[in-house]
């Protein structure tokens, strides 16, 4: 069956970097920038156990964007960012409202909020399809394949966002670290954990919106979590984890392109799949936590090595 095209080395591995580099080069770069920005922020989401919030924000930017399009009729970045930030704020407020004012718990409050907002967004883009420059496919998996056609603007924009993210993380490294780990300690050190939290949420919204065009609303979560999760399997020190995140971003973009060329499928989906493959490899082969090492270790350790001397105490 011709579902899976044949794997021709020339076509799949070599061509993207030689004759097609005009298009694939840019796509790889964009993918790398998106994954880096998302992955770096995502590290802190994982540490703070806020992966669900990341999921929520990535869904709820859709109505913000749709409304921004309808109102401003342009694809200008500023309008989009404002729409997304507005949506992010509304989301956070609604979630707080629901779970503080009723006995609905936080997890259900988050689920109800983002799915309703997302539903509104989908309806808007379906009903006003002609006026809004988004369609359902774009929402699901982005249009990273059309990046080469759109000139340098989107890439420059994303590069700025990524650079900003890196800069903020370097500048506020200590504050982010302490408030993620121990908010009590942060308070005693004069760090306002609330400010850090909301700033992180704003940064997250900005990053998510920038990534939206490339990978859509749902795969963004993968970009947020996979790099950091993989890095956490390979290292326990935060600076190293952040570096590994960037490496994961680069590898998954490049390998994703190869996969997409081979199978002729969605590029963003392929990048995420390769990211998941990298995670799987780390999961199995990681030097300390990997499944392989665990299996080996438990086989060598059948007897209790706790000294018998203790039982005489």
């Amino acid at each position: 069956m011709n579902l899976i095209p044949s794997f021709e080395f020339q076509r799949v591995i070599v061509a993207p970097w030689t004759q097609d580099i005009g298009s694939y080069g840019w796509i790889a770069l964009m993918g790398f920038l998106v994954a880096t920005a998302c992955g770096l922020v995502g590290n802190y989401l994982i540490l703070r156990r806020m992966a669900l919030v990341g999921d929520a924000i990535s869904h709820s930017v859709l109505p913000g964007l749709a409304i921004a399009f309808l109102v401003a009729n342009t694809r200008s970045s500023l309008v989009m960012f404002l729409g997304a930030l507005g949506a992010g704020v509304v989301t956070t407020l609604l979630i707080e409202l629901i779970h503080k004012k009723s006995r609905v718990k936080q997890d259900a409050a988050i689920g109800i909020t983002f799915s309703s907002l997302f539903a509104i967004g989908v309806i808007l883009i379906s009903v006003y399809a002609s006026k809004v420059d988004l369609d359902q496919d774009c929402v699901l998996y982005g249009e990273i394949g059309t990046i080469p056609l759109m000139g340098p603007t989107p890439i420059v924009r994303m590069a700025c966002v990524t650079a900003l993210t890196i800069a903020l993380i370097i500048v506020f490294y200590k504050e982010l670290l302490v408030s993620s780990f121990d908010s009590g300690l942060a308070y005693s050190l004069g760090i306002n954990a609330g400010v850090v939290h909301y700033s992180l949420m704003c940064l997250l919204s900005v990053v998510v919106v920038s990534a939206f065009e490339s990978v859509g609303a749902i795969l963004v979560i993968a970009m947020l979590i996979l790099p950091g999760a993989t890095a956490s399997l390979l290292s326990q020190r935060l600076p190293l984890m952040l570096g590994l995140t960037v490496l994961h971003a680069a590898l998954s973009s490049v390998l994703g392109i190869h996969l997409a060329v081979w199978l002729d499928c969605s590029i963003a989906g392929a990048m995420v799949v390769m990211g998941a493959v990298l995670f799987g490899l780390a999961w199995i082969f990681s030097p300390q936590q990997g499944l392989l090492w665990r299996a080996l270790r438990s086989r060598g350790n059948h007897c209790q090595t706790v000294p018998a001397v203790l039982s005489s105490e």
Partner: protein
Amino acid sequence: MAEKIVSVQSSLSSAPPLEIHDLTVAYHKKPVLWGIDLAVPPGKLVGIVGPNGAGKSTLIKAAMGLLPFNSGWVKIFGQPVRQALNRVGYMPQRESVDWDFPVSVMDVVLMGRYGHIGLIKRPTKNDREIARECLDKVKLLPFANRQISNLSGGQQQRVFLARALAQQSDLYFMDEPFAGVDAATESAIVSLLQELKNKGKTLMVVHHDLPTAREYFDMLLLLNMRVVAFGPTEQVFTPDLLQKTYGGKLTILSEVAEQVRQKGTQ
């Protein structure tokens, strides 16, 4: 109350209600319980005391089979725990459930009968009658139809107690039944527990308050990762043994356990 006379007789048989041998529980290479040996005689009200993190809750959960353990075994009335569960009653800590759950006080106490009812079958009139009696014993019968979040802390504790009573067991495990209750409720609970003991039941109660421990219990288990002492209260409640249990310094055992963990051996 529809009493099971059989249970009194079987508690006179030879197998002790609770027998633990060399029980060790470790989380991520850090030991919580170490080499616990215990044989509890029937018809006793046993208090389990020790400092925070001594493993008191872990002990009763492991004994009931709720937690896995690394070595040792547990027998209840001479049988493996799984088979003897129908003779075990459990009163967990209040924090273990979500009190916003849409059930009434009566629903919760009826849950105590589920073990006797078995799979699929419904509670009978008799079960409801028993539940009502247990609620009456803890003086919560007027609250039977109230949803459980509309109760005070002490009342919630009493609901759990009523549920445990409804189980009509021979061996009870109770995790801090007096936490957060006022003095009147506390003495009411104590007299209920003593009533149970006088009927031949065995009770293992995790307790947090030393002075009252001496008053309430016939036997005490002093626990700090391992059994420091176990026996009749007057013999065990001595300054020397208490110091060993609650003393701030690490005992040799804890030090070596720490070394073992750091070296990364299992």
